[in-house]
């Protein structure tokens, strides 16, 4: 088993200021549960930033200005897990931060995911995509996916329905199970009818499908040469 590096960020608590959002409760359990499960399987923890310690610049690519420092944080690790609020408008995903460093909202059009080391990103948020049409998936993710292999998120709204969603997924991912299937299995709840989705990139259609269906953490060193194709899988 290849050893991979892991970083997590999560936000539960917001303040009554310009960055104000509704407070959340399970986000630390999800993100840190994922991290702990990965470490228990022999992988390496690099960072764990919560609440005001989670910063928008950790995801912004330096080429987008604004103090973008993704290459030292989210894109410094192989697997990043982010748990928080999300909102999707104008074909851009936005993630909410409790402290403005340097923005209250991170925006996916400032990201170049996979420019350095990042292979897999969990966005444990609402509205990772608004629906599953080509425009909703490709227009939002075709640009930011710049070398990353897979993104795991949710279609529309979801509710954190169990404290162990992150640790369960980490346990499967860390032990070499197929990543897309592990995400869909561990985060779908028939009680609430949410819709988890995994989005894979590839230079060709076959490559994107192959990653969607078969990729595990052992594929770390099998790079995506270009994001010409996306292949996605969701339960609803």
């Amino acid at each position: 088993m290849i050893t991979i590096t892991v970083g997590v960020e999560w936000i539960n608590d917001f303040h009554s200021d310009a960055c104000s959002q509704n407070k959340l409760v399970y986000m630390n359990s999800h993100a840190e549960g994922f991290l702990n499960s990965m470490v228990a399987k022999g992988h390496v923890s690099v960072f764990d930033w919560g609440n005001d310690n989670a910063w928008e610049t950790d995801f912004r690519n330096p080429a987008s200005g604004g103090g973008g420092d993704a290459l030292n944080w989210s894109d410094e690790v192989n697997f990043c897990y982010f748990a928080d609020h999300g909102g999707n408008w104008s074909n851009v995903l936005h993630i909410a931060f409790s402290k403005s460093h340097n923005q209250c909202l991170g925006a996916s059009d400032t990201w170049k995911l996979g420019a350095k080391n990042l292979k897999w990103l969990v966005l444990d948020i609402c509205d990772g995509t608004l629906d599953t049409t080509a425009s909703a998936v490709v227009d939002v993710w075709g640009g930011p996916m710049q070398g990353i292999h897979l993104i795991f998120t949710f279609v529309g709204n979801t509710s954190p329905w169990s404290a162990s969603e992150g640790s369960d997924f980490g346990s499967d991912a860390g032990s070499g199970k197929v990543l897309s299937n592990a995400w869909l299995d561990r985060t779908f709840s028939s009680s609430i009818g949410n819709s988890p989705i995994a989005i894979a990139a590839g230079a060709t259609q076959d490559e994107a499908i192959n990653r969607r269906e078969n990729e595990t953490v052992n594929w770390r060193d099998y790079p995506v040469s270009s994001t010409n194709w996306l292949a996605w899988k969701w339960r609803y």
Partner: protein
Amino acid sequence: MPSIQIRGKMPDLPESLPPIFRLRVPRVNERALLNLAHRFKLKGREQAGSISRDASSFTYSEGSFDLTLHRASGAFRFKDRNRWQVDHRSNVEFSDEEAIKLARTQLRRYKLLPKKSKVLRVSRLHVATAGPERRIQDHRVIDVAVCFQPIVRGLPVDGPGGKLMVYLDHEGKLTCLDHISRRVGPVYRKVIQLHSPEHAVDQARRAWETRGIERVEISEVRFCYYELGWNEEQRYLQPAYYILATLISANERIRTGDIHVTPAAVNAIGRLVPPLPRRVAQKPRK
């Protein structure tokens, strides 16, 4: 005080008060695992397969089949590794009604169909691709999953548990079966009175107020028995209100789902949901 809009109908309460049941201690050991394997028509012998163990479960593997039994709950999953969630380039074309019929047949075959149950949801596993032309291609459905809820004294069992999930491929064949349904024991306590659904909403309102939430839409208030998930111990099955809501940000652009669970019985026992682990505060980042 959060502003709350209730979009769904409040649940009707039964005429007779649903009691609190004791749940039977699950029989979870390797012998129970092998006995369960026989039920699924496996050989169920260590010579024919292998048993692996971890902190939360035992798994018996034989050929492409894995049968996992969870220690805390007695819940189990029977799956075919080669077929469950795997895209063999097929497409499920049958309707929800046909899927429900096929799923019931599978549960009967393994003697797992509860005496009373209802269908909670039929979900489908979809795949799709798009290339440089940004047009969807190869959109197919590779499985259909039927989720049944057991009914106890007229009430559905809900929560992370209280589920029998049957996954079927394009031919209607079983690829996986999840059984998270604890065995109900004798009545432990009669319920002397139920809180009203409005009381449950008020409890939720207080919880949201503590979190500083300002605007909430409640989509559904369910009256049910509440059951925990795969890896949690549970001693009693109690009536509960299960509230599904959406929290809305001040600018209305960011919405998130939220679940609030509260005991329905005035004389409920303890907590329904385990407390979250204590959070360790981080030092400010420099």
